C-alpha cells in the first residue's frame, strides 16, 4: 500500500508545484500551494513523522498560507498579461536541465550513511512526538531557544515594517 500512496502524494505534489509557479492569477497560485503543502504533509506521514505532519498542516498550511492570502487580498493585485519574464524560455530550459541532471545524479548515486540512534520500532513504541520532544529539549535546546528569539524578532520586524506611518514618522522623513 505504501508505494501507491507515495506515488499519489509525490505526483500531486509535483503537479501542484508546477501549477503554483505557472498560474496567472495569484490566488489560484496560492490555492495550488495549499494543495502542495497538504500532499507534502502526506509524504511526512508515510515517513513515520506524525508530529511533523501535524505541524506542517497547522503552521504551514494553516498560518503561513493564510498570511499569504491575506496579503494578496490586501494588495488587491490585478493579474496582468505579462506575468512571466521576457526571457522565461531560457530559464525554463536551464531549470529543466538542472532538474534532469539532479534526478539522474540522485538515481545513480549510492546513498549510505551512519545510522542514528532511533530505530523505527523504538519510535513507534513511544510515539513520534515523544521522540522529538526528548531530542529537542536535550540535545537541540539551544537551537530551539534561538528559533524562539528569531520568531520574536520576525514578529517585531513585521509589525514595525508594516505599520501605518504616523505623522511623526512623516516628519522624520
Amino acid at each position: 500500500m505504501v508505494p501507491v500512496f507515495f506515488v499519489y502524494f509525490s505526483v500531486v505534489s509535483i503537479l501542484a508545484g508546477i501549477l503554483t509557479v505557472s498560474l496567472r492569477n495569484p490566488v489560484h497560485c496560492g490555492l495550488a500551494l495549499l494543495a502542495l503543502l497538504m500532499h507534502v504533509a502526506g509524504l511526512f506521514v508515510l515517513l513515520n513523522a506524525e508530529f511533523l505532519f501535524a505541524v506542517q498542516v497547522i503552521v504551514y498550511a494553516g498560518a503561513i498560507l493564510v498570511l499569504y492570502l491575506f496579503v494578496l487580498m490586501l494588495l488587491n493585485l490585478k493579474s496582468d498579461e505579462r506575468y512571466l519574464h521576457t526571457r522565461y524560455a531560457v530559464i525554463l530550459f536551464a531549470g529543466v536541465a538542472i532538474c534532469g541532471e539532479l534526478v539522474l545524479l540522485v538515481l545513480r548515486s549510492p546513498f549510505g550513511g551512519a545510522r542514528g540512534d532511533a530505530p523505527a520500532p523504538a519510535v513507534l513504541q513511544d510515539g513520534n512526538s515523544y521522540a522529538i520532544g526528548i531530542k529537542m529539549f536535550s540535545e537541540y535546546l539551544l537551537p530551539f531557544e534561538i528559533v524562539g528569539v528569531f520568531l520574536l524578532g520576525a514578529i517585531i520586524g513585521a509589525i514595525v515594517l508594516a505599520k501605518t506611518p504616523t505623522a511623526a514618522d512623516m516628519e522624520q522623513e
Partner: protein
Amino acid sequence: MVPLSAYVAVSAILFATGLIGVLIRRNFIIVLMAVEIMLNAANINLVAFSHYLESMAGQIVALFVIAIAAGEAAVGLAIIIVVFRGKISTNVDEMNLLKW
C-alpha cells in the same frame, strides 16, 4: 518499500520547480511562494533521510525549517506591503533602485 532515492528524487524535482518559479515570475508574492516550495522540498529530503538513517535529527531540523520559513514569510510580506505603499505595482522589473 520505497527506496530512499525516490524520495530524494521527488525532493530534487520540487526544488527545481521552486527554483524555476523564483526566476521566472514577475510578481514578488509568487516568488515568495516559490521559495516556500523550495523549503518544502528541503524538508522532504531531511525527513526522508531521518527515516532511512533512523535518526531524529532530520525531523528536528525540519521543524526548525518550518519555523524559520514562517518568520521569513512574515517579514517578506511586510516588506512587500511597505514597497506597495510607495509604488503602485509590485512588479519586480521595476524595482531596480539597486542599479547605481
